[in-house]
């Protein structure tokens, strides 16, 4: 057997229990297996292990709700090229690119082995932000448009290079890394778990609750101290509030870009109301300070439960009116429909995840495929899946999910009696020489955190995957053949994270 089988709720796994196989065996297995859409790779990374370089592969089986772990190793300075899996399954491109960038491991016949994020610890110091090897097409009728790294609005930096034929986009390439601040490295260079928690909250500020939940869950698994049912319910409420806030914000942003000012201001006000609800709960509009390992400093009280229920009901009612207005405005539908299409087959091929994948008909949702928190107990989550894969599908996905999240919060809180919940524990001993991972469905999609520990039970390697890592390529594909003036709505319909990608 080349895999260790586990699931999303299981505790940490001793490193020695993860099979170490030949790369050829893993390659041959994945070659076949990944053709079936029930499987996809959650994480695949390398980490130094003494004089060796050790590779871990975490594969998800969505049908059986199982995770499959495997590993292989090579000498740190071994000079061989591994046959590329990306060549067969493009979905693996960010993982192989990262491995090459950090450790100089070559992948044979890898079609697109470009720098991923120019980290400070990259092997090739000659590779810098300034000389990213953009793809070029020559032709008299073609021109290039460079956008960024600084964009027009108040957003994060990234460089977009368009190759255009007149108004229409032939190709878009996205070069990232400007936001790289060494996040993963900071996790393993401290043993202060409060510091690690805050690092997790800042992986992507718009997903602070999701990333902090993933981190806390990793610690709890390594400490063999599963969170209580009450704690999981409160975290689920926070996760769904975050989803509501960001989906409403993006509905407003899409409205703004098509000059639908009524929808924009209505959504701005509703987002304010949502994040102020989170602030009234925990003191921070983005939920920072709320999620902590093994407990919480901000348990719900009867008054706060009532406050959240009242606000959520009002937000739901008013947001639904905006949705009705969008659906009955032909001038809006004309902009959103049939624009920025990512077909299902393409989305599957590039390994899209989360709401963007579901908008294209690819059912990737950790809440159903690998349940955790209240999705594993009180909530029978039904993923919302759309078919068209256009801007409209990603918008209506948001519209439906806001209402669904509001319903889940109401369902959870209607029967919830605040109880004593433990305080956070930043000192809890963690299993030595082990690996733990956690998958959380943030509002963008699957977030995966993986930690391995050393002999002292402290974090040795910390790996983070934000859904944006996969979905940036989906945006590049969405704008192909579109007018360049439709780029803003295509971009907003995804609203991907730069800092979550660059780490």
């Amino acid at each position, binding site marked *: 057997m080349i895999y260790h089988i586990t699931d999303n709720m299981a505790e940490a796994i001793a490193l020695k229990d993860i099979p170490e196989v030949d790369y050829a065996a893993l390659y041959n297995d994945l070659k076949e297996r990944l053709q079936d859409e029930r499987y996809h790779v959650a994480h695949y990374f390398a980490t130094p292990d003494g004089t060796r370089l050790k590779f871990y592969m975490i594969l998800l089986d969505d049908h059986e709700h199982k995770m499959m772990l495997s590993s292989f190793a090579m000498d740190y300075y071994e000079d061989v090229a591994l046959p590329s899996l990306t060549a067969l399954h493009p979905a693996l491109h960010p993982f192989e690119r990262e491995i090459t960038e950090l450790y100089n491991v070559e992948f044979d016949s890898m079609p697109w082995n470009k720098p991923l994020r120019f980290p400070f610890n990259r092997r090739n110091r000659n590779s810098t932000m300034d000389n990213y090897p953009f793809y070029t097409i020559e032709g008299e009728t073609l021109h290039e448009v460079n956008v960024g*790294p600084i964009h027009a609005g108040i957003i994060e930096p990234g460089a977009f290079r368009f190759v255009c034929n007149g108004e229409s986009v032939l190709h878009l390439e996205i070069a990232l890394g400007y936001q790289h601040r060494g996040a993963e*490295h900071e996790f393993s260079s401290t043993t202060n778990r409060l*510091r690690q928690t*805050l*690092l997790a909250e800042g992986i992507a*500020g718009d997903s602070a609750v999701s990333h902090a939940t993933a981190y806390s869950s990793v610690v709890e698994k390594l400490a063999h101290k599963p969170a209580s049912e009450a704690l999981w319910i409160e975290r689920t409420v926070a996760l769904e509030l975050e989803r509501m806030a960001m989906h409403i914000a993006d509905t407003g942003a899409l409205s703004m870009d098509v000059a639908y000012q009524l929808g924009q*201001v209505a959504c701005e006000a509703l987002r304010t109301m949502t994040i102020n609800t989170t602030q*009234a709960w925990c003191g*921070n509009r983005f939920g920072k300070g709320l999620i902590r390992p093994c407990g919480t400093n901000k348990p719900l009280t009867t008054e706060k439960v009532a406050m959240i229920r009242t606000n959520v009901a009002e937000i739901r009612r008013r947001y639904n009116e905006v949705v009705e207005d969008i659906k009955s405005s032909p001038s809006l539908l004309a902009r959103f429909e049939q624009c920025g299409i990512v077909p299902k087959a393409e989305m599957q091929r590039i390994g899209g995840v989360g709401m963007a994948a579901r908008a294209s008909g690819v059912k990737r949702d950790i809440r159903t495929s690998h349940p955790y928190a209240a999705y594993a107990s009180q909530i029978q989550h039904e993923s919302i899946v759309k078919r068209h894969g256009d801007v409209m599908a990603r918008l209506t996905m948001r519209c439906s999910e806001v209402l669904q999240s509001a319903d889940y919060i109401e369902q959870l809180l209607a029967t919830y009696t605040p109880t004593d919940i433990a305080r956070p524990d930043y000192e809890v001993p963690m299993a030595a020489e082990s690996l733990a991972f956690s998958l959380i469905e943030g509002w963008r999609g699957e977030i995966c955190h993986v930690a391995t520990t050393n002999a002292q039970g402290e974090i040795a390697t910390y790996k983070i995957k934000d859904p944006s890592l996969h979905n940036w390529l989906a945006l590049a594909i969405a704008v192909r053949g579109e007018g360049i003036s439709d780029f803003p709505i295509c971009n907003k319909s995804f609203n991907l994270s730069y*800092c979550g990608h660059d780490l």
Partner: protein
Amino acid sequence: MIFPKLKVLKSHGWQYIPDLNAVELTEEFRGRPVLTTTDDMSDVEEAAKICPTQAITAAPFTLDLGRCLFCGECALRAAKNIRFTNDYKIGSTSREALIVKPGDESIAFCAEQVREEIPALFSRALKLRQVSAGGDASVEMELNATGNVNFDFGRYGVEFVASPRHADGVVVTGPISSNMAEALDICYNSVPDPKIVIVCGSEACSGGLYADSRAVDRRFLERYKVDLWLPGAPTHPMTFIDGVMNMLKLKTR
């Protein structure tokens, strides 16, 4: 169709905050801390030990808001010594003024340090170019919110613009990643003189969690004078509004 629009409009009502000077944030909000010295300072030593950004020193007892990420953990460990209030007026023209000492009842804005031309030229219209350099997007979203339907900072002529050529200054967010350092410099140099620099968020003020990271390059702040320091994780829109209004002499704290 007009009826769905009327419905949205009716529910939306009036969202504008009439008087930005009268805003009070929820009790839960963690803003300016109040420090109290006690005979036994061992709790403060404990709090200083766990502080993720070394914002606290026990002797002499201080808390540096330019480093603080407002997680509130110290106030739980040293409840007698540290208490966070909901006071959002924590910006200053002086980096030193962000260091809170026992007995401090407010953050000094240090209006005397504001260059004369700033209120003279920009008090009726200030256009800013924001640059994110390693920020986590939360400060950026709060800056967006300053112009939204609730806060509407545009009423004072303060707005964000797309081109540095149209701007009167830059607002820097994030710890300043090395990969972004050059772009930030180019952007700053494209802003016509006289120009201002606002540093927004504790991560920008001190580097925050990334102060010692090798992926960060903060030399920009050595080269150019900062006109306004705004702590916060993220900086609340009201902290930004209060700080900028003080800088433009539209109010005094």
